[in-house]
């Protein structure tokens, strides 16, 4: 679906016409990311992170395929093949560090993309499916990143694998057999390394598939925008090409400047020195930490230190960690406010900036800190608020909040009372109440 004023694809020459009649792929691209896709004219920079996430995915797949050409998934040589890629393979250092830092860049971009969704209510009707697919992509990304970190078979690789697969051991009755099945043994070893490599190569292509569904679902209602008011007329939109292609190009340039600074000047800044020690099943590093992008969820895992009624602390931590992301699946139904954008929700905005954001910052910090006081207590308080925010605060706020008046249209929000703007219809029966289109 698209808006009635969307430009139609017209083949320019007999060859493209011949192709269009047999396989309308150029038409699909034209309508998806070309001039045939009308986009709200008021998108701000937070709307650039979808494209940047797509760019990161391509970057990871390309650099990853190169890494796989020089890697051997065998515990005897895996560590050495990665080091030899860096030292001996032509440009190997570039691909290795681009892949490792690319994972971090991907998560930076995706966290900002999710942040946009939270603040501007992008998850609300009619875009629930876009949001649900996005959460699926995030879960797939986490699984892929975790398995990728195991492949160099350093100390953090090994012990990360041991701790995370140990989580499955917490499940009652089936936990231990399940853990052995996942690992193909009693502890991470050759069998586990091989299957992690296989899946690490597979999952990015699964992500590509879900991304296509994500974009497909987005194009049914079209992009949301900072006001949260739906598109009403042609003057509310501009074509994706050239307007947002140009803007996304500019954002891509900025992103690449920051990314290449990390890549060329600080390639190991986000890594952990212990991962340059080959895996040793006999000795645990003093301070096991996952990669930075898992810290908030790792903090929630560690926040549970005593039994919760009849549920053991370990199982409770595992349930909470997975629950922290699964709760996002219910967000479109927990937040009942018909107003999407945080700009027009004074109470929601307060809880967002002074509740959720500091909570995430605390969880983030504590996840990378040692398992000692005061970090344990801070994680517990933050984890408590985290769940309360989604399960209690959001439903209550959305019920009692009095939203600010919304602009009649996107055009009005951009141009105000400009004479050229198409404002509220003059006819009184057209319904001028500035209610959100739900």
């Amino acid at each position, binding site marked *: 679906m698209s808006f009635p004023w969307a430009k139609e694809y017209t083949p320019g020459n007999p060859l493209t016409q011949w192709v269009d009649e047999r396989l309308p792929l150029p038409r699909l691209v034209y309508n998806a990311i070309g001039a045939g896709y009308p986009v709200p004219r008021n998108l701000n920079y937070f709307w650039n992170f979808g494209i940047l996430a797509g760019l990161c995915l391509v970057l990871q797949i390309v650099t990853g395929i190169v890494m796989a050409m020089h890697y051997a998934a065998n515990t005897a040589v895996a560590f050495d093949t990665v080091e030899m890629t860096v030292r001996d393979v032509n440009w190997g250092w570039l691909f290795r560090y681009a892949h490792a830092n690319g994972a971090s860049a991907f998560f930076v971009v995706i966290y900002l993309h999710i942040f946009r969704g939270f603040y501007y209510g992008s998850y609300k009707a009619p875009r629930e499916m876009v949001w649900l697919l996005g959460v699926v992509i995030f879960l797939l990304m986490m699984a892929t990143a975790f398995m990728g970190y195991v492949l160099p078979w350093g100390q953090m690789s090994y012990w990360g694998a041991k701790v995370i697969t*140990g*989580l499955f051991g917490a499940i009652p009755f089936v936990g231990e057999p399940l853990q052995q099945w996942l690992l*193909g*043994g*009693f502890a991470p*070893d050759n069998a586990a390394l091989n299957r992690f490599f296989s899946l690490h190569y597979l999952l990015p292509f699964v992500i590509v598939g879900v991304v296509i569904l994500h974009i497909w679902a987005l194009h049914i209602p079209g992009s949301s925008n900072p006001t949260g008011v739906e598109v009403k007329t042609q003057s509310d939109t501009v074509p994706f090409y050239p307007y947002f292609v140009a803007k996304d190009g500019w954002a891509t340039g900025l992103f690449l400047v920051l990314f290449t600074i990390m890549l060329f000047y600080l390639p190991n800044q986000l890594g952990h020195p212990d991962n340059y020690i080959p895996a040793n099943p*006999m000795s645990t590093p003093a301070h096991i930490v996952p990669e930075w992008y898992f810290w908030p969820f790792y903090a929630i895992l*560690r926040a549970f230190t005593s039994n919760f009624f009849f549920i053991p602390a*370990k199982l409770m931590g595992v349930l909470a960690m997975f629950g922290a992301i699964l709760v996002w699946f219910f967000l479109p139904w927990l937040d009942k406010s018909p107003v999407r954008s945080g700009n027009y929700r004074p109470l929601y905005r307060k809880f967002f900036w002074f509740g959720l954001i500091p909570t995430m910052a605390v969880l983030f910090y504590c996840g990378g800190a040692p*398992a000692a006081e005061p970090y344990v207590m801070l994680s517990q308080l933050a984890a408590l608020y985290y769940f309360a925010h989604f399960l209690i605060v959001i439903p209550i706020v959305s019920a009692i909040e009095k939203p600010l008046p919304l602009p009649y249209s996107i055009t009005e929000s951009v141009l105000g009372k400009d004479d050229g703007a198409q404002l509220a219809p003059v006819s009184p029966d057209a319904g001028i109440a500035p209610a959100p289109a739900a």
Partner: protein
Amino acid sequence: MAETEGVRRRDFINIAAVSAAGVAGIGVVVPLVSQMSASADVLASSSTEVDISAIQPGQAIKAVFRKQPVFVRNLTAHEIDEANKVDVASLRDPQTLKERTKEGKENWLITMGVCTHLGCVPLGAGEGETKGEFGGYFCPCHGSTYDTAARIRKGPAPKNLEVPAYEFSSDTVVKIG
């Protein structure tokens, strides 16, 4: 063949075809799932023999069993007393030292060196490593603390360090597994 009563020929073929496809589907899933379990060579190397003759009282060694560390510890008389003084009912995973060792060999504490929380190797078996506040083992990952009978006393671990199946082949050799 326009039958109107009983099982029609088409219904029969339909049910038979779907059933056959279902059975074939299960036949495909079973090997797909089963191939991920521990393979025969992994299972074959699942026992190990340890020479304990050189371990003095108060010392411990780390042996390898199923690619994981196992702690063999020669307890001192003081450590045995310490373990026996504890009120068993007050423990998270109630067990006496006697239940965790072999008859007549109470000084030999043999446990997996795998924290029951998330599988890290606790400290306390190696020379100069901290034994934690209860004199047994201390896991650096999330702070689980074990006593001189390797029982969980503090921290997130739910169970005592696991005692693997083992037997004394002689006074100086232990066969684990």
